[in-house]
């Protein structure tokens, strides 16, 4: 095959930097393109992404657990037959909800859509959810409640270029999505983060709350905005509802009280509000730090309330947004792999939405199952009465990414059948009964929707290696074996997209005016982009939402009355410190891909724990020493890195490592009741040094 080029996008984060791939039979090389979000930039994860394509342990063949307990290669027909037979058996014995489906925010829109359709039609199960639940579900819930629609950034990334002040609550883009930083250069940054992250280093003002107190801080900022007269009563009256109820809670959060709870000086809180309120163009952005809490949706709502009081959302040049994490975290939550949703970001409990989607699928509305349960609960239910007995995992590694991973592993081991479709071996494929090798980014066609709601084309440079198949083919293979007509599960991405577009028509995330032809011509299409009326001209897409009205029926944004009650777990004698988790620049998610890139893996080969030198001294931990970090749930081993900028009550661990270094051995599986997001950011822990014996 001759060398050729394709224009595509990076496989990793939600920024979806534009890239150009060159290659053929030999090595593949990548170069950044002048796409608006990255404008020629790329981080080291993106530069080294092609290395994963040729990973020596790439999955090339279906694997089946044999009588000796090992995974052995088989052919597709055998693998799919066995899976289908077992699924049929379990469904007939225990009902359709005995089968669970677990998707991922890295799947293309087409795969996410087909997975949701497969679950509801071929399996008839309500038990589908995805790893986005671990990621930014809180922001989605809060965004829907406030604005009537959830699109990470309701404006193009490039709008941030002209901001004067940006408040970034719990986000660290300087490490997690470095090319975004060029859009933040012109603004003064206010960064809220318990630790001095690479982003906090660039901030004009850094607020360092104790982990788990972010909502108290948000309430305090609202208190200052109103009590010091910075709020915009005219905007509040004209464009919002619910201010009085939200204010009634914030009344009790004066800055000196917030200081006591959060450790953020009252004067710094005041400065933050003055900076934000004094700017002509200002943004409030949230990231995982604000979201991954037992009160995550309320915490995000607290920051949205602040933005609304200052009159930012829905105004040109200002706004609120969430920095979506996973590559297709946005699109992945719009097309039906979420427990409570149907394509087009429709609610599965809305009779009109059900009827529309059932119509597109050619089935009766009553045949569609109702809402399922959030990811953590789905895993917990494994092997329990009324719980799932089989789980199909597509594009996720829940053994590492779920909170309290020790428990998650035990739960998955109780299943009668675990099927994992992936392109690399992971902690989850190692537990599987059947492993199905699938294609990855440079081997497939499809679309992704980035953090600004823009729909992008992913293009294939290479043919599928070995016997790997596209997830779309896998789903069709299973669906037909479960009695579905072949035509219901097309395998051509553009055909799936056209159906997805029809299914989304009229929904909040309306893709019906988008097709591959328009995307391939380079049109910047942000949803909603409804189909053109007959003889009408094509809809140009919606780069900026809410300028005229918000998506609630009354056109107004809603304040949410929220209050702070503290994290589920408090520190005490046995576990006197707080562990918080996060990401580092060299790795993505559970590191399944990036840990296979030599350059990245060599730079950060093992898990570490950052802590203050005084905390280390008191705990008898030396710099560079292996440390044992324990919570009520488990113990992780990590290399100590002393850091004078850490809070003395806080430890930080990255989430990317497997085995004994896995940060999720420690995390608390308590869930936010509103969004189902787990409390990854707060766990009560202790730390001690480990004496290593040289062997």
């Amino acid at each position, binding site marked *: 095959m001759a060398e050729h080029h394709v224009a595509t996008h990076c496989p990793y984060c939600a920024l979806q930097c534009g890239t150009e791939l060159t290659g053929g039979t030999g090595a593949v090389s990548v170069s*950044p393109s002048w796409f608006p979000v990255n404008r*020629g*930039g*790329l*981080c*080291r994860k993106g*530069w080294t992404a092609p290395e994963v394509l040729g990973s020596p342990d790439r999955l090339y063949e279906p694997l089946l657990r044999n009588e000796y307990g090992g995974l052995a290669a088989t052919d597709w027909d055998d693998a799919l037959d066995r899976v289908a037979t077992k699924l049929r058996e379990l469904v007939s014995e225990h009902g359709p909800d005995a089968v669970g489906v677990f998707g991922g925010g890295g799947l293309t829109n087409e795969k996410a859509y087909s997975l949701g359709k497969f679950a509801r039609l071929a399996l008839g199960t309500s038990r589908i959810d995805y790893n986005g639940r671990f990621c930014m579900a809180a922001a989605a819930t809060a965004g829907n409640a406030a604005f009537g629609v959830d699109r990470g950034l309701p404006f193009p990334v490039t709008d941030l270029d002209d901001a004067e002040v940006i408040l970034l609550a719990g986000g660290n883009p*300087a490490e997690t999505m*470095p*090319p*975004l*930083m*060029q859009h933040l*250069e012109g603004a003064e940054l206010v960064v809220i983060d318990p630790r001095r992250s*690479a982003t906090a280093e*660039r901030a004009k003002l850094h607020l360092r709350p*104790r982990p788990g107190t972010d909502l108290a801080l948000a309430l305090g900022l609202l208190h200052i905005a*109103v*009590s*010091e*007269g910075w709020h915009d009563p005219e905007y509040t009256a004209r464009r919002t509802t619910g201010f009085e*109820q939200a*204010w*009634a*809670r914030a*009344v*009790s959060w*004066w*800055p*000196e*009280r917030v*200081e*006591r709870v959060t*450790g*953020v*000086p*009252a*004067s*710094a809180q*005041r400065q933050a509000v003055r900076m934000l309120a004094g700017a002509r163009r200002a943004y409030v952005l949230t990231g995982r730090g604000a979201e991954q809490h037992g009160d995550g949706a309320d915490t995000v709502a607290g920051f949205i309330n602040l933005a609304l009081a200052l009159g930012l959302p829905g105004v040109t040049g200002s706004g609120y947004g969430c920095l979506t994490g996973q590559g297709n975290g946005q699109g992945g939550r719009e097309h039906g792999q979420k427990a409570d949703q149907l394509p087009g970001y429709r609610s599965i409990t809305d009779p009109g939405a059900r009827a529309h989607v059932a119509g597109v699928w050619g089935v009766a509305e009553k045949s569609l199952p109702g809402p399922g349960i959030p990811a953590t609960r789905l895993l917990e239910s494994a092997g329990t009465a009324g719980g799932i007995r089989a789980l199909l995992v597509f594009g996720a590694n829940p053994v590492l990414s779920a909170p309290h991973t020790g428990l998650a592993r035990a739960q998955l081991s109780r299943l009668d059948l675990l099927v994992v479709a992936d392109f690399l071996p992971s902690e989850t494929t190692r537990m599987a009964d059947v492993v199905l090798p699938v294609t990855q980014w440079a081997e497939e066609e499809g679309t992704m929707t980035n953090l600004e709601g823009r729909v992008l084309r992913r293009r294939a440079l290479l043919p599928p290696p070995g016997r790997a198949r596209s997830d779309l083919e896998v789903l069709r293979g299973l669906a037909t074996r479960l009695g579905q007509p072949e035509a219901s599960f097309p395998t051509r991405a553009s055909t799936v997209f056209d159906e997805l577009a029809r299914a989304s028509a009229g929904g909040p995330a309306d893709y019906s005016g988008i097709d591959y032809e328009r995307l391939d011509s380079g049109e910047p299409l942000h949803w909603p982009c409804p189909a053109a009326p007959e003889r009408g001209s094509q809809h140009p897409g919606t780069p900026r939402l809410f300028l005229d009205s918000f998506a609630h029926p009354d056109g107004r944004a809603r304040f949410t009355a929220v209050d702070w009650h503290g994290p589920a777990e408090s*520190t005490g004698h046995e576990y*006197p410190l707080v562990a918080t988790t996060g990401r580092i*620049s*060299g790795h993505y998610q559970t590191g399944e891909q990036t840990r296979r890139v030599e*350059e990245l893996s060599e*730079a950060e080969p093992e898990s570490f724990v950052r802590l*203050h*030198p*005084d905390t280390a001294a*008191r705990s008898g931990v030396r*710099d*560079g020493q292996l440390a044992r970090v324990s919570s009520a749930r488990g113990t992780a081993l990590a290399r100590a890195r*002393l*850091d*004078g*900028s850490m809070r*003395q*009550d806080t430890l930080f661990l990255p989430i990317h490592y497997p085995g004994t270094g896995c940060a999720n051995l420690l995390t608390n599986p308590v869930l936010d009741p509103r969004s189902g997001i787990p409390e990854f950011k707060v766990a009560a822990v202790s730390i001690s040094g480990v004496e290593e014996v040289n062997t």
Partner: protein
Amino acid sequence: MSRLVIIGDCPASHRLVERLLEQGYPGSITVLDAREHAPHNPVLLPAVLSAGLEPELAALPTHPEPVRVHRGTRVTGIDRQRRVVRTEHGRVHGYDTLVLATGTSPVAPDLPGIGDTTGSATRGIRWLRDPFECHRLHRELASDATVTVLGGGPSGVETAHALALGGYEVSLVHRGQHLMRSWVDRAAAAVVASTLRDNGVNVFTGEAVTELLPGKLVLASGQAISTDALVPRTGTRPETALASEAGLRVSRGIVVDAELRSSDPRVHALGSCAEPTGGDANSLDGHWEQAENLAGVLLTGRAGSHRGGGDLLRTRGAGLELACIGDPELLTGEARWVEHVTINDPKRRRYARLALREDRVLAATLVGLPEAIAKLSQLYEAGMPVPPDRLATLLGSPTRFEAAGRTTPDPVLCHCNNVSRSALTAAFQDGARDVPALAAATRATTGCGSCVGAVRELCGALAASSSGHVPTGTDSPTQEGAA
């Protein structure tokens, strides 16, 4: 069904009702309050004075049904035998549990012509007890009016500060030799006074007042201060009349035990009318802790596990950074087991005095040190040790930590792509002679782009040395640029 009657709608009893509702209190709740309008959050009074906050925004939220709140209803008596309270309208409310939350009334200053606490605006007296009184002052006084605050305790200091932020010409007159005498020492008080003066407050200490005349206040020293409005902040007295008439034990306030129970087990008291054993009775935080505790008692028969608010005084208001932690007595003592740390920096309006034992904060006074206030109050409440570098902690400079062997002779210039100085130098020598070429060769600058300057500088330095010789040594300017 159990009947709970609460006399007085104050922040403490308001929080009590909220907590009872949240936790599903099974009985009926009736609140009787003599005032016409809803209770307010006292912390917002300064905002009404200084920022013109609408008084309605300072109100505490309205309780939902089925709580019955009777406003404008003065209670005239408690009959503990019959377990009823009588109101001025002749109504009778039976109770199974009674909670007194009657609050305080201001102590009028000893000043001829001031009369009792009903002293009115016409005579220039402004009590500023609720947001409406504050708003009236804000509305009625011209922005250049003169306001005198009488009394230099925490409340007088906060009020004077807020009025000054509101643009008035403010005087603060205090009888004692220094401000906040029962809280801070002379040196700290001097820094507080200077801070107030910086904000435009005229501070008079050691001054008694002799007479209030139209437009001016006469001091014992003979000096007259222009005064369009006089705001007394000369203390408060718990409202205990109902309790003593009902035969309950009253000392300065209504005496209650740790479960906020008075000498009659069916009658509780909380908030500023109560005199609890231990705990912090004087702050809003303390009152809320009481409310949490009493909610626990009424629901389960046991006080909750809430710690008392701790002895922590924190002044409120932008630019007024003062905290008093723990027992101030410990700051003056000379006990051998107490470690003292003092910083007195009057020019920069900073003062700190710490009393530590085994690295833990026993007591502290902190003025003008916002970072230290935030940090030490958290360490105090968590019982965590103070870092060994006390001065760095107080002054807010980060602890420097250089691990042995962590100094890098070859710094990373591009963190996003992990490109070191030596890698860039090597690329330069291989022919990459400008930033785009270096970027293409090494990927430096292609992440967040923040290292472009450093890379350009290095490139310039390498080009300047004609032979392309690599500058080494720490004295090279590029090294500094890279650091």
